């Protein structure tokens, strides 16, 4: 420790730079707009009651409100009643900044819907990837057939093509089919994971042939073997691949940005955050950072809980 | 070349004490083996000599100079590692040249491209090339110089590791189980070659092994280590014939020495299987003791004997034969060396009686220490040294 102090010095400096935006994101999500503007309040802010001006404005009493409220304030003039109502609105609309920020995050935009979309899209992508890749990987690893080398060469060639790079022609194809602004558009380009095929094939190569022969002796067909024998043996590799796939698609911004335009119901979390930023003014820093925190948190928490698995999954590429 | 001197070296890893005060003097040009079961501390001791570990206490001297404040690179020792530790990206020739390049060229001269332009680099490089060629010739690996270690067989890698060690002229050679990754046949062959190499270089060798046959066949002296101590350090024949302790007797020799329970009667006489022997201790405690008998110290006898039993297993090696005999009241079987001609009398299940030469009997006390002062009661009552 004493001998290593200079290493810790360098590494801690790195930690500060790495952590800074996370710190700021979470901290701003706790603070009132005033505190953000003035840069006060430490990490949590002072959490003094604040008044939501927009909420007050919405409840600005008009003639009808005053008439309705007249019964509650007998003998008062209209302007008095108006002031009393305003005071009521003020007190109803005042809350702690942290509550204000997070309520706004969920009410200003359908954040829950975005999160649900994120879950639907990442889960569909992963399941279809597995359904498509696993049988192909099994055939390439364990079955002898004419054309196997050609198919595998094709897989190796396709590994060279990043899907982001061919976004434009894919977008044109989807547009021609009238599929833009659908879940299908979000999912389809990712249904084929050549990397998944390659990875699972390498894994299946290590499964002994005897296991498959035994299954055949037991009367299983090739399809049954894939799902009943190979799938269970591949669970660790699939788990790693799941993490790889889910992290990539939960965080993906480029592709949803291209195929989803305007239809909020299809927004994935990053798109929702982007829109929030687009129409927000300065006073919305707090809620916006609350949204960002909500979007980033699930993966970070999962990562902290299962670090080893995540690092394995994300660096899957390294196994090539 | 130089001798080594180790004094009271201790070492602990966390809670476990690996070396408990080891002292050993190795003369200039001597071949000493450190032998013992795994975990006895022999490799740790070698690494302390090398400077790869630091001792807890005690001192190491190389050629009379204390080396505590010198790191491994400065101690002028060569080492052959168990895994050979060849640099996988360098060719055989480059691997052998590394110790010379590191010592004779400075950092700038070692740089690729730029280094070649520095004054003096060429001359030194030529000199190094000559040394590498000489070492390769000595080990007959001249034709492999351009290959990568990955392309070599285990035996060839082992030679390259040797070549890297002897390309310079170190104070001593340290070898850490260099033969353990070779197959049996190659091991026997390389054993002889290393012994020859030692004679030719007349250099100091410290050789760590768990294989007592290697130690017996190559060394000038064997240091038998157990539990972090050197139990005995002596020439191979002495260690075999005249062990100081029961553990040494048990570790050295194959097949293993027979150990029989013995009782020292109140008058000092020894009693085996309730029968008094014509042998008595001169001094020391009475009670339980052990009798060590090498398989060749036993012989077949007709008639009465304290050791009677049945043949349960025999191994005929062609030139000799080892027979295991189950003796009543003894937990372990007794191994007897016989000649193949005797096999007729040693068929499985045959009852046999055994006799032994009292002069070859090794007596150990209850703690396992050798009892050397003995009185022969029969014949002229002489004392065995």
């Amino acid at each position, binding site marked *: 420790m004493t001998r290593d102090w200079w*290493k810790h010095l360098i590494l801690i400096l790195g930690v500060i730079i790495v952590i800074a935006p996370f710190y700021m994101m979470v901290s701003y999500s706790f603070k009132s707009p005033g505190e953000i503007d003035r840069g006060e309040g430490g990490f949590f802010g002072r959490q003094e009651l604040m008044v939501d001006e927009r909420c007050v404005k919405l409840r600005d009493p008009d003639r009808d409100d005053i008439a309705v409220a007249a019964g509650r304030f007998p003998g008062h003039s209209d302007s008095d009643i108006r002031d009393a109502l305003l005071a009521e609105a003020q007190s109803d609309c005042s809350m702690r900044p942290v509550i204000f920020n997070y309520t706004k995050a969920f009410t200003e935009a359908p954040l829950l819907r975005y999160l649900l979309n994120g879950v639907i899209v990442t889960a569909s992508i992963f399941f279809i990837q597995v359904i498509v890749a696993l049988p192909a990987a099994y055939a390439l690893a364990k079955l002898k057939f004419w054309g196997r080398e050609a198919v595998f060469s094709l897989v190796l060639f396709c590994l060279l093509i990043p899907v982001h790079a061919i976004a434009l022609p894919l977008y044109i194809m989807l547009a021609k089919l009238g599929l833009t602004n659908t879940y299908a558009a979000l999912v389809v380009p990712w249904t084929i994971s050549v990397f998944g095929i390659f990875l699972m094939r390498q894994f299946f190569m290590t499964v002994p042939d005897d296991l498959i022969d035994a299954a055949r002796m037991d009367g299983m067909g090739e399809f049954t073997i894939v799902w009943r024998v190979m799938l269970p043996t591949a669970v660790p590799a699939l788990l790693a691949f799941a993490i790889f796939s889910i992290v990539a698609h939960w965080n993906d911004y480029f592709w949803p940005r291209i195929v989803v335009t305007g239809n909020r119901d299809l927004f994935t979390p990053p798109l929702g955050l982007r829109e929030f930023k687009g129409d927000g003014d300065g006073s919305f820093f707090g809620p916006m950072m609350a949204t960002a925190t909500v979007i980033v948190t699930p993966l970070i928490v999962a990562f902290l809980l299962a670090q080893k698995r995540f690092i394995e999954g994300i660096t899957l590429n390294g196994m090539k | 070349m130089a001798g080594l001197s180790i004094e009271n070296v201790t070492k602990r890893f966390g809670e476990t004490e690996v070396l408990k005060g080891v002292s050993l003097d190795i003369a200039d040009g001597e071949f000493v083996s450190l032998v013992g079961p795994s975990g006895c501390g022999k490799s740790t001791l070698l690494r302390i000599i090398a400077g790869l570990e630091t001792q807890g206490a005690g001192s190491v001297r190389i050629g009379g100079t204390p080396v505590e404040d010198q790191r491994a690179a400065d101690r002028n020792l060569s080492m052959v590692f168990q895994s050979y530790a060849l640099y996988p990206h360098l060719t055989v020739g480059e691997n052998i040249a590394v110790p010379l390049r590191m010592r004779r060229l400075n950092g700038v001269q070692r740089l690729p491209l730029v280094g070649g332009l520095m004054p003096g680099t060429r001359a030194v490089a030529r000199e190094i090339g000559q040394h590498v060629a000489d070492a390769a010739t000595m080990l007959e690996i001249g034709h492999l110089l351009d290959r990568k270690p990955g392309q070599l067989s285990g035996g060839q890698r082992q030679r390259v590791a040797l070549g890297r060690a002897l390309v310079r002229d170190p104070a001593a050679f340290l070898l850490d189980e260099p033969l353990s990754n070779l197959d049996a046949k190659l091991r026997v062959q390389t054993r002889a070659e290393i012994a020859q190499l030692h004679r030719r270089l007349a250099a100091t060798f410290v050789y760590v092994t768990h294989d007592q046959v290697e130690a017996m066949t190559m060394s000038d002296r064997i240091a038998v280590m157990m539990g972090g101590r050197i139990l005995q350090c002596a020439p191979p024949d002495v260690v075999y014939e005249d062990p100081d302790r029961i553990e040494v007797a048990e570790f050295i020799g194959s097949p293993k020495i027979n150990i029989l329970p013995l009782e020292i009667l109140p008058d000092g006489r020894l009693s085996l299987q309730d029968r008094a022997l014509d042998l008595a201790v001169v001094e020391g405690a009475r009670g339980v003791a052990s009798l060590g008998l090498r398989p060749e110290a036993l012989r077949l006898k007709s008639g009465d004997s304290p050791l009677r039993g049945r043949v349960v297993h025999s191994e005929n090696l062609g030139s000799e034969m080892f027979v295991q005999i189950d003796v009543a009241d003894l937990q372990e079987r007794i191994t007897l060396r016989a000649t193949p001609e005797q096999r007729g009398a040693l068929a499985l299940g045959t009852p046999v009686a055994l006799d032994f030469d009292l002069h070859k009997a090794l007596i150990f006390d209850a703690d396992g220490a050798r009892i050397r002062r003995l009185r022969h009661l029969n014949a002229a009552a002489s004392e065995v040294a």
Partner: protein
Amino acid sequence: MAVIDVSMTDAPRETTVARATQERRAAWALTAPALILMVIVLLAPVIIAGLLSFTNYSLGNSGFDWVGADNYEKLFTRSTYEKMFIATLTYVVTVVPLSVGLGLGAALLINTLGRFREIYKTIYFLPVMATLLAMAIAWEFMLHPSIGMINRTLEATCGTPFEVVPFIANGCADRFPLWLGDKRYAIWVICFIGIWQGFGFNMVLYLAGLTSVHRELYHAAEMDGAKSAWDRFRLVTWPALGPTTVFVVTISCIRAFQVFDTIEAFWPQGGGPNKSTYVMMFAIFEKGIQQNLIGIGSAITMLFLAFVMFLTLIQRWLVERKVHYK
């Protein structure tokens, strides 16, 4: 006798043939979905982009004209695209060496530590996990010229001995940079965020690579007279990390070429001040999708694919040739 012979030799052969046929059918059935998708989703778009890059096609138009290599000619003559190449190359050439170097440095430092290594590893990996878009917005706030944490911190150093640094002295005298609004800084800020996000990934790969270095090799190096840490690094560590380095550099390059999220988040229109951060992915997005200039977008796509494929092929060649020490 003959009957028995036939039944004994033919029956197995028939079943073998039948089994082979069955196996072949099963194999094609199992690979068919993957094959079809590979062709539709990956190969067809490449061909389509290749063809469209020679046309003036726009979505919504019924027809199009073949324009030959016009689109490519524009790419290499117009100043907008010159800026695109400069921005992309600046980004790649800055981010790749620095994120690889920092990843390696962090891995080497962490690897020698006994305690706390897991904590550093976890923290440095956080940016890899986090949604880049969200973090880009967080960075945007940090870089805000007036209320951002960075300029506030810099302002706090005014009047302290730090002012001997010319950059801080200038900032205190006048004002600190606008960062994202300043064309001198914009691309470097983007590079910085790219490095910030990517080096933890490289570090983890290097840490995995370091565990495969045989410990005895370091001892051999020490015995061979490699006294300095640098000598041991040159003799043992760096060669052993060869395969990891080839992989890390390639993947960093491909990721660097694909930079998009940060730029779109900071400058939804136009690719930064004076187009100083107009990288290829953004150009594809802007030309092809926002402005519906499919021809030129396809040409950029083809160029982009060529870069990425070239890099990957170099990587595969290196892996097979050089770093396999066999």
